[in-house]
C-alpha cells in the first residue's frame, strides 16, 4: 500500500514512542476520570482530547445544552437462550466496573442516562448464535449505558447495529470473566445527520480474550473511544476497525490499551478510506505499558487510503513504555493516496477505472476483514463494504 511520503496535503501522521517514568496519557487529559459531568470543564476545542473534534457539530453534547428527549432510541436485543437481558436503574451495582468516563461527553452520558441495559452470559455458557442488539435512532437526543458481561469461560459474539438519526452519547462496558471469549462487532451505519459519541470500556479477565470490531460508515460526527484494561494475567485484546469517511463526515476513533497487568497481549489494526470534500478521519492510538506490566506484547497499526482531494486524516499512534521487560511493542501508521501502479495493472487487464478503484479499496479492507475470524461476520462486512463502494466509489 502507499507509504507515508504519499501523505495528502493537510494530513498528519505523527507518531511517538515515549519511554516515560510516568504516563503522559493521563496528564494529557484536561481532568481526571469521573462519573460526574460537573468534574469536567466545558471544552473549548484546544484541549488535547478535543483538538481534532468539531465541537460545534456535537449539538450540545459537550456543554450541557443537549437534553434527552423521549423515544429517541429504539433498542432491541435478540439473544439466544441462556442469556439474561435486563433494564436496570442507575444504582445497579454492576454499572461502572469496566472503566470511568474520561472526558466530558462520556461523563455527561453517565450523568444523564435513566436506565441501563445489562446483558449477561452466565459462566461456562458457550453461545453458538450471536447476540444481536439493534440501536435505531428516531430523532432527538439520547443518553445511554450498556453493560455486556461474560462469566468465566463463557463465549459469545455480539453484533451491535446503529442505524437511523439521533444525537447520542453513551458508555458501553464489556466485562470478561476469567477465560471468557467475547467478540463484539459495532457497526455505525447511521443516517447522514446523526451524532454519536461513545466510550467503550473493556475489562479483560485472566486468560480471557476480547475482540472488538468497530465499523463506521455513517453519521455526521462519530467519535468512539474504545478502551481496554486487564483484570488478570494472560488476557488478550484484539481491536479491529474500519471506517469509510465520505464528504463532510467526521469520524474519530480514539483507542487506549492500558497494559496494567503483566503478560497480556494487544493487537490494534484500524483501516480507513476517505473521499470527498472535508471528509475527516481521526485515529488516536494510545498504548500504555505500565511499569508492572512485564511480559507485554503489543502492536498497533493504522492505515488510511485517501481516494480524492479535500479529505483529511489525522493519525497519531502513541506508545508509552514504562518497563523494559516486555516481549514486543510496535506501531505503524501510514496515510496514502490511491496506488497508481495498482490501478494501472488492473486497467491494463481491461478492467474499467471505477471498477479497478473498487477492487483496490475492497482489497484494502478485505485484508483486515480476513483477520476477524468469524466467517458470517466477515461475509456480512464484505457485503456491507461492497454496498458502500457501489454507492460511492466512482
Amino acid at each position, binding site marked *: *500500500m502507499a507509504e507515508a511520503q504519499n501523505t495528502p496535503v493537510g494530513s498528519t501522521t505523527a507518531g511517538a514512542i515515549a519511554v516515560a517514568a510516568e504516563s503522559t496519557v493521563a496528564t494529557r487529559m484536561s481532568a481526571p476520570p469521573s462519573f460526574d459531568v460537573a468534574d469536567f470543564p466545558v471544552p473549548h476545542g484546544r484541549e488535547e482530547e478535543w483538538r481534532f473534534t468539531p465541537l460545534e457539530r456535537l449539538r450540545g453534547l459537550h456543554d450541557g445544552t443537549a437534553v434527552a428527549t423521549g423515544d429517541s432510541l429504539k433498542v432491541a436485543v435478540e439473544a439466544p437462550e441462556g442469556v439474561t437481558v435486563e433494564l436496570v436503574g442507575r444504582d445497579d451495582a454492576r454499572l461502572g466496573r469496566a472503566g470511568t468516563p474520561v472526558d466530558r461527553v462520556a461523563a455527561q452520558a453517565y450523568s444523564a442516562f435513566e436506565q441501563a441495559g445489562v446483558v449477561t452470559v452466565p459462566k461456562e455458557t458457550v453461545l453458538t448464535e450471536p447476540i444481536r442488539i439493534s440501536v435505531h435512532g428516531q430523532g432527538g437526543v439520547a443518553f445511554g449505558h450498556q453493560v455486556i458481561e461474560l462469566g468465566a469461560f463463557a463465549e459469545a459474539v455480539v453484533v451491535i447495529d446503529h442505524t437511523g438519526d439521533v444525537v447520542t452519547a453513551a458508555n458501553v462496558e464489556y466485562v470478561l470473566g476469567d477465560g471468557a471469549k467475547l467478540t463484539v462487532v459495532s457497526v455505525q451505519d447511521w443516517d447522514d445527520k446523526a451524532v454519536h459519541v461513545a466510550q467503550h470500556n473493556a475489562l479483560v479477565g485472566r486468560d480471557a480474550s476480547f475482540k472488538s470490531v468497530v465499523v463506521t460508515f455513517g453519521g455526521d460526527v462519530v467519535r468512539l473511544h474504545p478502551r481496554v484494561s486487564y483484570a488478570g494475567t494472560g488476557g488478550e485484546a484484539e481491536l479491529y476497525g474500519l471506517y469509510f469517511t465520505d464528504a463532510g463526515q467526521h469520524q474519530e476513533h480514539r483507542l487506549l490499551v492500558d497494559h496494567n497487568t503483566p503478560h497480556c497481549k494487544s493487537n490494534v489494526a484500524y483501516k480507513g478510506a476517505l473521499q470527498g470534500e472535508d471528509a475527516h478521519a481521526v485515529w488516536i492510538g494510545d498504548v500504555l505499558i505500565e511499569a508492572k506490566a512485564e511480559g507485554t506484547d503489543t502492536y498497533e497499526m493504522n492505515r488510511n487510503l485517501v481516494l480524492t482531494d479535500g479529505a483529511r486524516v489525522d493519525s497519531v499512534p502513541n506508545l508509552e513504555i514504562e518497563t523494559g521487560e516486555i516481549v514486543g511493542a510496535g506501531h505503524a501508521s501510514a496515510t496514502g493516496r490511491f496506488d*497508481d*501502479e*495498482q490501478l*494501472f*495493472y*488492473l*486497467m*491494463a*487487464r*481491461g*478492467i*474499467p*477505472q471505477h*471498477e*479497478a478503484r473498487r*477492487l*483496490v479499496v*475492497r*482489497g*484494502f*479492507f*478485505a*485484508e483486515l476483514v*480476513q483477520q476477524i475470524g468469524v466467517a458470517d461476520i466477515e461475509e456480512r462486512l464484505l457485503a456491507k463494504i461492497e454496498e458502500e463502494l457501489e454507492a460511492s466509489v466512482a
Partner: protein
Amino acid sequence: MATLEIRDLHVTVEADNATKEILKGVDLTVKQGETHAIMGPNGSGKSTLAYSLAGHPKYTITGGTVTLDGEDVLEMSVDERARAGLFLAMQYPVEVPGVSVSNFLRTSATAIRGEAPKLRTWVKEVKETMERLSMDPSFAERNVNEGFSGGEKKRHEILQLELLKPKIAILDETDSGLDVDALRIVSEGVNRVRETGEVGTLLITHYTRILRYIKPDFVHVFSAGRIVESGGAELADKLEDEGYEAYTKGGVSA
C-alpha cells in the same frame, strides 16, 4: 488480420524536475501471427515502449502514432487498449493486496470478453491453464502477486495471456529471473498462444536464451530509444556472439 503500427513514436518522462526524452522515433509493425523480438541493453527504453503502448500515465507521448487495425491507440484509456486487444506482460508485475487471483482473473476476463464467462467452463479453463503452467491451485486464492516469487509472478502473467487471448501481446522481459525449468514452462505457454496464429507477439528481452524456446520471425536491436537494426532470427545469433557493444558505442544509426 490485426496489425499494430507504431510510427515515429517519441516519449518523454518527468524525472527530477526535468523532461527526459526516452523514445526517439520508434517505427515498428506487428501483425497477427508474427513474433518480433526486441533486444537491447539496459536502459535503452524497451520497457518505456511497452508501457507507452499500454498507456501508463507516467509516460508522455510527444510525437508519432500508434494504431491497432487503424484505430488510434493513443486516444484510448488503459482499459480500452486492453479491451481492444493489447496485452502487456509486465517486467515487474504489481502486488494488489486483498484481491484474490481468482477474483482478478474473472473480473478481467469479464471485462475483456464483454460478458462474464460461464462459471463451470471458466473454473475448468483456469484450472487446466494453471496446471499446464505448473501453478499450484492454491494460487487462485492468494492475493494478486503478493508474496509471489519472481518466477511465480511471470507464470501468473502468462496465465493471463492464455486466458485473455489478446490480438497483440507485449512480453516485457518475461524471461528474466527464471530458472531453466520455469523458462521452458513459460515459453511453452507463450507458444501455445502463438500457435493459434491469432496473436502478434512483441517479445522484449535482454538475453537470447528465451529465443531458443520462442522462435522469432524478426529481431530488432533497440538502443538509445529507437530501433537501430532489424533482421531475421540470425540477428539474435550475432548478438549472442558479439553483444550490444557495436550498438552502444555510438556510430550506428538505423
